[in-house]
């Protein structure tokens, strides 16, 4: 255990070399290494999707329900579309939603959490109540209620993700801000007459980023699950756009004709959720075991 401990110390010091040490620490753990490989594969799939010789939405009725082979690596679906190519393009949707929704949620959680932790007590109580109320909707119910009103779209997916994950970020930011507001460097800044927004942006926020990034890596599988789940229910991405959820839905509809669409739709969801979870867990255990108790 002595080697990782020194890595932690190096990582805490900041800078370029420690980041490599952090990467080494993650790879040294079999679970972390497996997670990293899976995450890299998913990102590569999204980046390299255009290299596939097939068109993800081109229908070839004569080749419908083909088994996996040299031409169609994962077989074809009920319209003869190449499943492997659709999975690659689905990775783009999954990561696009994960990145954009998490960024919005993170920004909102930072602002509201710091306001709750640093602002007056009534504001803190009010925001906490809103966070708790938002968390009291089961996510799927929220998605169903929202889509009833807006109709299915990628925007609705992003909105559901933001509502589902923002309270979590907000609560962690609030708790950390409450500790930091009494730290000496914050008191010093305030004594020098720095206004609250400046104190929050320059003194408090940089100290929140570390724990938040670990939370984000733990939340990405949740976000990917929400996108795939909503698209599976027909509440998210609309056909023919390839999303892992819509591929799975096609597979479900034709499950008696061919097992391959159902397998092809599930595989990338499993790879992405397991990959990001393994990676996130390893990062958390290495760098911030305290987070284990929250959440």
């Amino acid at each position, binding site marked *: 255990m002595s080697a990782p401990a020194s890595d932690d110390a190096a990582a805490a010091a900041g800078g370029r070399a420690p980041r490599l040490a952090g990467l080494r620490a993650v790879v040294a753990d079999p*679970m972390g290494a497996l997670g990293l490989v899976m995450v890299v594969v998913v990102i590569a799939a999204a980046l390299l999707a255009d290299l596939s010789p097939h068109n993800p939405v081109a229908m070839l009725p004569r080749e419908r329900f083909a088994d996996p082979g040299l031409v169609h690596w994962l077989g074809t679906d009920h319209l003869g579309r190449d499943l492997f190519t659709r999975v690659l393009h689905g990775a783009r949707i999954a990561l696009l939603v994960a990145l954009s929704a998490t960024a919005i949620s993170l920004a909102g959680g930072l602002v509201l959490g710091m306001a709750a932790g640093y602002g007056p007590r009534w504001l803190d109580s009010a925001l906490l*109540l*809103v966070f*708790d*109320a*938002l968390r*009291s*909707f*089961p*996510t*799927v*119910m*929220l998605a*169903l*209620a*929202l*889509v*009833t*009103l*807006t*109709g299915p779209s990628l925007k609705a997916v992003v909105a559901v993700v933001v509502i589902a994950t923002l309270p979590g970020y907000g609560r962690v930011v609030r708790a950390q801000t409450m500790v930091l507001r009494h730290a000496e460097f914050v008191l010093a800044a305030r004594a020098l007459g720095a206004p609250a927004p400046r104190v929050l942006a320059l003194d408090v926020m940089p100290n929140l980023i570390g724990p938040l990034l670990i939370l984000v890596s733990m939340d990405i*599988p949740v976000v990917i*699950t929400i996108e*795939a*789940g909503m698209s*599976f*229910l027909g*509440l998210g991405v609309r056909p023919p756009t390839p999303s892992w959820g819509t591929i*799975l839905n096609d*597979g*479900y509809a034709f*499950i*008696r004709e061919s*097992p391959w669409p*159902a*397998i092809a*739709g*599930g595989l990338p*969801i*499993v790879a992405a*959720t*397991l990959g990001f*979870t*393994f990676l996130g*867990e390893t990062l958390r255990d290495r760098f911030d075991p305290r987070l284990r108790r929250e959440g």
Partner: protein
Amino acid sequence: MLAYALRRGGLAVVIVAVALVILIAMIQFIPGDPAAVLLGPLASPEMREAFRARMGLDQPAVVQILRFFFRVLGGDLGTDVLTNRPVLDTVLEQLPFTLTLIFASIGWSAALGIPLGCLAAVRRGSAADRLVGVLSVAAIALPSFVVAIWGLLLFAVTLDWFPTIGAGEPGQPLDRLHHLVLPSLAVGLGWVGYLARMVRATMLEVLSENHIRTARAFGLTEGTITFRYALKIAIVPTVVLLGIGVGHMISGAVFAEIVFARPGIGRLIFDALATRNYPTVMGAVMVTTVFYVVSTLAADLVAAALDPRVRAGL
């Protein structure tokens, strides 16, 4: 204890009220006209106007919130647009199916997860402990709808061990149970992981305490120490987690009900969505939200009754 129960109960009521306000605010502030979405593009402006008047959507937001609030307090969740039946009746008709699924899932995941957590804690650092650790994380990360569809593909379509659709014939318990296996597998699998991790963590804490050392010094067997003494204490946080689990499993149940074409709340909302039956969706969402808040409230109260330190926390 009573003071804590009153404060915690009061908080639950406030949370439900705020959730209700958020739900109505969503209707108000979402860009676009719900009447247009609900009636479809072919509806005439007069039809939309009539619909808005019928649903009370033409009133100011505050009026809508208060009206809806007092109606809900009186047990009136509105009227189903298609069948003209009270939404509450429809919801209560479907609720037992969902509750059966949720409690079956809780039951089997606790029966498997708690012993696995004990095993991992007692054999800390062993290969078994590491295996339970990795499998728990994997079970938690796997989305329930993928488990449901792969379970359906493998055990129902390919092997033909279990039925693919429905909840079974009424009055035939074995048939009902047969239909319950695959859906509860999908809903409960993640909770095996949660419970195993939770029990392992609390067991490790308890096993290092003085009274366990004393028990060992008296020469009690490891089995007696683990199950008679340590587990009794370590089970408290798990009870709380189970309470939260009952609420969380609603999400998993929605997918299981849709994949296996089972009756239930999830299926009800999903079908209501397809027919744009908006009062039923809102009423059923409200009922599940109340259910969720009540189940976490119950869990917190049980925890407070078992452990005085919790009471001081609020």
